[in-house]
């Protein structure tokens, strides 16, 4: 068993929870940002060292994915392609983005908290259920456009959505984004 904690590997060798075999990330994507190239490279590495038998139909996936930007704890943008129907938590883990997910998407932890950075996109999401709101109550650094990453599922209207991962050390003001208290 691979014993490596370095970003991504650590999560992707888990073998628990995330249905990562199901969704294949794209290998060739337009190189828009540096961060993105980094993640594509990592994916390539990942691909070449594991799951060699898997096939993936890039052409059809391209149509069935949307672009999602994660703003990580350090304020860096990471643009990824997310297949329709996949949760942002799974997508983040597929792409080695450091979004916590202590309960692996079972709506029992609030660590997958993300902040939707544009109200228009926020309004395109279905209203959170009572159960999601109960967990959001406990989310660290809650804002008016907070959601749980494991509950946001990619759909075509969300193409282009930007979400931030809140962190203790993160300064939102840098992005001109001021979290509003509830």
């Amino acid at each position, binding site marked *: 068993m691979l014993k490596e904690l370095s970003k991504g590997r650590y999560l992707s060798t888990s073998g628990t929870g995330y249905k990562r075999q199901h969704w294949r990330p794209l290998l060739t994507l337009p190189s828009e940002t540096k961060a993105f190239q980094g993640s594509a490279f990592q994916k390539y590495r990942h691909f070449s060292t594991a799951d060699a038998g898997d096939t993936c139909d890039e052409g059809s996936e391209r149509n069935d994915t949307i672009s999602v930007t994660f703003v990580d704890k350090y304020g860096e943008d990471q643009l990824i392609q997310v297949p329709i129907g996949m949760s942002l938590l799974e997508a983040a883990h597929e792409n080695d983005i450091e979004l916590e997910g202590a309960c692996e998407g079972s709506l029992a932890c609030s660590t997958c908290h993300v902040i939707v950075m544009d109200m228009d996109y926020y309004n395109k999401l279905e209203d959170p259920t009572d159960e999601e709101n109960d967990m959001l109550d*406990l989310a660290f650094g809650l804002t008016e456009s907070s959601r749980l990453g494991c509950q946001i599922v990619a759909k075509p209207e969300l193409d282009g959505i930007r979400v931030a991962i809140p962190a203790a050390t993160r300064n939102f003001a840098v992005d001109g984004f001021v979290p509003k208290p*509830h």
Partner: protein
Amino acid sequence: MAGGGNPVTPIWDRLLHVCFHGDYEENACFHGDYEEEKEEEEEEEEERGTLDLSPLLNKAMMLQARSWLSRARSFSTVSNNPLRVCVVGSGPAGFYTAEKTLKAHQGAEVDIIDRLPTPFGLVRSGVAPDHPETKIVINQFSRVAQHERCSFFGNVTLGSSISLSDLRELYHVVVLAYGSESDRALGIPGEDLMGIHSAREFVWWYNGHPDCRNLDPDLKSTDTAVILGQGNVALDVARILLRPTSELATTDISSHVLTALEESSIRKVYLVGRRGPVQAACTTKELREVLGIKNLYVHIKEADLVKTPADEEEMKNNRIQRRVHELLSKAAASGSSQPNSGQRELHFVFFRKPDSFLESDERSGHVSGVHVEKTFLKGVGPGKQIAVGTGEFEDLDCGMVLKSIGYKSVPVNGLPFDHNKGVVPNIRGRVVTDPLGDPTQVEIGLYVCGWLKRGPTGIIATNLYCAEETVASISEDLERGVLKSRSSLPKPGREGLLQLLNDRNVRPLTFNAWEKIDSEEKSLGSLRNKPREKLTTWEDLLKAAAMK
């Protein structure tokens, strides 16, 4: 932390805003690649053969450093010289600290010790058996324990197997994350009567903690239990007492406990809070769950739900308080006025503070009720109201009392401790030498995380941010050279620990031993259609750990 903590300014935030006007002012943001940057500097230092003790090292520290040095040299394999880190306690705080440390410091070697043969702290012994989703985080923690630079050693108790000064000699960095294993006391007459337990003990009992295996609470001599406190632990305990046992049978609740609950005669539970519904310390998820128990009569006095302007003010900025009040109001409005026959009952009692415990006439030495004083709320600052007695009293008759008024940490020898707050005084995780003296004087290489650092509040995730802060402090100290001279000051770390334990006849149990316990528990559980059947005695745990 009213209402279980305001999500917008959690207790955590207050810690973040502690401004430290000492030597650590520069707030370096650490991204994990510092090791390499530092390498050259250290090599140079090694060549010079000098030990650059930073100005922060006082004379006592110099002496200690010398003794470290001489001891360190007596160990053989210190040729490669990683940063040696010891984390005490394997609950969420310990595991998150280990995870963040391994990530931030590619060369670090992290050992986690715990007094139990089983890891995961309150995730195993606190989180309720009917909350399996909450325990999924164990997967993540297990991956940390299996990391090649991480080791787990159970059955090692700080304070008896090994002292704090031993650990500080063996490791560059010691992070204390051993939680809160005692109870806040009420300090009122009758507190020692039989039939009164702390919620901590009761929870340890139903979760199969070996220390409370034999608690054997008497659930058969009474139909009424009083729970003091209205936090989430109080709700957990109430739910275990009231929930149909058929629903608990398929959880990992200990079998002897399930039997005791099946035979329990308790039908009525009072949840007693000294303040009002606006100040109830529970959170919505736990409240929704207890209100939703099948065939349960819930009683809440509508008059208690009336809000004062001060309450409104308090709720304005607190989403949890608003939503908890809303849920309670709904429950009060929708419930029937009388219980059906055979229905179990849950009574929310607000504005009552315990004054003394009553002793039974028939069973001497045994509790028969709680004498409570009515209270009103008095503002003591913006958004803060406390309970004040009105001088009117009443009795709540009951045969069992569970005190759920909060946990408390216990100090170990040589550790600065704030007895008032029940925490280790610290600045962003750095242990402060004297809680009453100079707040900038910190213990070099000694850190704290989790409930021991912040006090006994917060959910599992809170410890994640708490660990981030502590590990950031460690990184800053390394970068500033406060913990410097790893190369010039090697430490024996793991090997030294194992040698010392061996000398003392302490047998540490590795993560592999836990895995044997784990698989034994799972196979016992599968026979009973449960996720696991916990081994609840030291003897059974040690036996399973020793299996081939």
